[in-house]
Every structure is written in structure tokens, then in C-alpha cells.
């Protein structure tokens, strides 16, 4: 195994481990942030997964594209320099993507907080309240059973006999 292949293998291994570590950190800590930003927990979970998938694609894609080392590596120190340069670039890209991710999430959050913002200024004055409705005329209703008195009862209504129908054979009074 020559020096270049060894450099490639170390580069790939370190880059992938770093990418997975950052992605897991994002997945774990971004969830709390997204729950607050999106209110809907299912939506937050879905957005979080999609963001992490996008992060994996972008970062692993960049690692693959930037793999090639054009210069010759005659000794260990030049291989180390090339490896450090490549890994440094990967770390910078990871950092950039991380802050971009935070920026997008904070935009979500800010938007939701603005949607719930109460009016920023107090009213200059309030509409005068309409007049209360007038109390009804007449005396207030009597309490049902005043303390110490027997409950008022209504006098018995005399049973009235049904009025007899006028007899047809009764003579009419004289006009």
C-alpha cells in the first residue's frame, strides 16, 4: 500500500466519522429546537430527518468530490500536509453547513414567534362602553320564603260548579 492510498483511507475514515458525529448531534439537539419552532411535533420530526438527510448528502458528496490529491507524496510529511488540508476543508464545510442549518431553523422559530406576537402598541383609548340596560319597572320579586315566616300560600280557590247550559225549553225573558 503506497502513501497516497493510505492518506485516502485515513481521510475517508476521519471525514465519515466526523460527518456522522455532527449529523447525530444535529438530529438530537435540533429536535428540541424544531419542536419549539414548528409546534407540531410530527412535522418537527419529519423536518429534522429531512434536514439531516440533506446534510449527509451535501457533506458526503463534498468529501467524495474533494478526495483526489493531485500532487505527488514522496514522504510522510507531505502526505500529512495533504491530509490536514483535506480534513481542514471538510471541517470548514461542516461548520458552514451547521451554521446554515441553525440559520434556517432560527428563521422558522422567529416566524412562528412573530405570528403569536401580541399588538406591540397599547390602544390610544378604549371605545366607551354602552349604557347598561335599565332595570325593569315595578317592584322586585318577593323572596320565595322569608326566614321566620311560614311559606306564603295562596288561598284555596273555590271549586266553581260548571255553569248550566241554557235550557232550550226555558222561556225567554220578556223584551
Amino acid at each position, binding site marked *: 500500500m503506497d502513501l497516497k492510498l493510505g492518506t485516502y483511507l485515513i481521510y475517508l475514515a476521519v471525514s465519515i466519522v466526523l460527518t456522522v458525529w455532527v449529523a447525530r448531534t444535529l438530529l438530537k439537539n435540533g429536535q428540541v429546537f424544531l419542536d419549539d419552532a414548528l409546534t407540531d411535533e410530527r412535522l418537527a420530526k419529519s423536518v429534522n430527518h429531512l434536514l439531516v438527510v440533506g446534510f449527509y448528502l451535501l457533506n458526503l458528496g463534498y468529501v467524495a468530490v474533494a478526495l483526489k490529491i493531485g500532487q505527488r507524496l514522496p514522504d510522510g510529511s507531505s502526505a500529512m500536509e495533504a491530509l490536514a488540508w483535506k480534513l481542514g476543508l471538510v471541517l470548514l464545510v461542516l461548520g458552514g453547513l451547521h451554521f446554515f442549518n441553525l440559520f434556517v431553523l432560527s428563521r422558522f422559530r422567529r416566524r412562528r414567534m412573530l405570528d403569536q406576537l401580541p399588538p*406591540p402598541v397599547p390602544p390610544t383609548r378604549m*371605545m366607551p362602553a354602552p349604557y347598561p340596560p335599565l332595570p325593569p319597572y315595578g317592584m322586585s320579586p318577593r323572596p320565595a320564603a322569608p326566614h321566620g315566616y311560614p311559606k306564603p300560600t295562596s288561598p284555596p280557590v273555590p271549586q266553581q260548579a260548571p255553569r248550566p247550559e241554557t235550557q232550550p225549553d226555558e222561556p225567554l225573558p220578556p223584551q
Partner: protein
Amino acid sequence: MITKLTVLYDAGCGLCRTARAWLASRAQLVPLEFVPAGSDEARRRYPALDPAETLADITVVADDGGIYTGDAAWIICLWALEGYRGLAARLARPDLRPTARRMVAAAAAVRRGTTPQGYGADCGGTCDV
């Protein structure tokens, strides 16, 4: 909780009509309704408001009974629009409120200059400023 805002604007002034058209063309988080100030509809809805006062200065009535005039009226209108809430919150801060007041005063001066003399009240849009 405000769920509707009624804007009493001066239908007789070009600047006010332009402002009304701009407000109406934006997406609204809280619905805005426009009623010409001093009209029969405005009198019927708000008998407690003085029509001369509402003609002199933009007046916004919230459905919770709050009345906003002058720069507060503009800020509450911006707050009702989608995408302008951040601006409304910034303008309401104590360090930017005087700037908002001056902007409203400048707009009122333009309005006074473009409407016939003796129209509206003497303060013509700057009663609160």
C-alpha cells in the same frame, strides 16, 4: 385578543386612498376592513366616535374595543400584515417610536399640502404627534 381591525380612512384624500390600497393589497394575518371616515356606515357602526376626529386622523378600531390613532394606528396596521410584524415590533420600541411619529407627521404634512384648505380639523393628521 384582536380578530378584526376596522380602518377609518379619509376617502377624500389621495394619499389616504393610496395607503388604503397598499394595505388592502398585502396578505393579512388579522383581517383589515376599510370604512370611509365620516360616512353613514362609520356613524352607524361607531356612534361614540366623533366623525370630525376620525377624518382628521387615521383611526383604527379593534374588535376588542381598542382605538388606535396616529402612529399607533400605523403600527397596528403593520402588525396585522403578514411579513411586517417584525417591522411593527421594531417601530414600537421606545428608541424607534419617535422616528415612527416623525414619519407619520411627514405623511400628514404631505396630506395637508395636497388637500384643499380647511378640510378636516386644524391639526390635520398630527393631533397625536
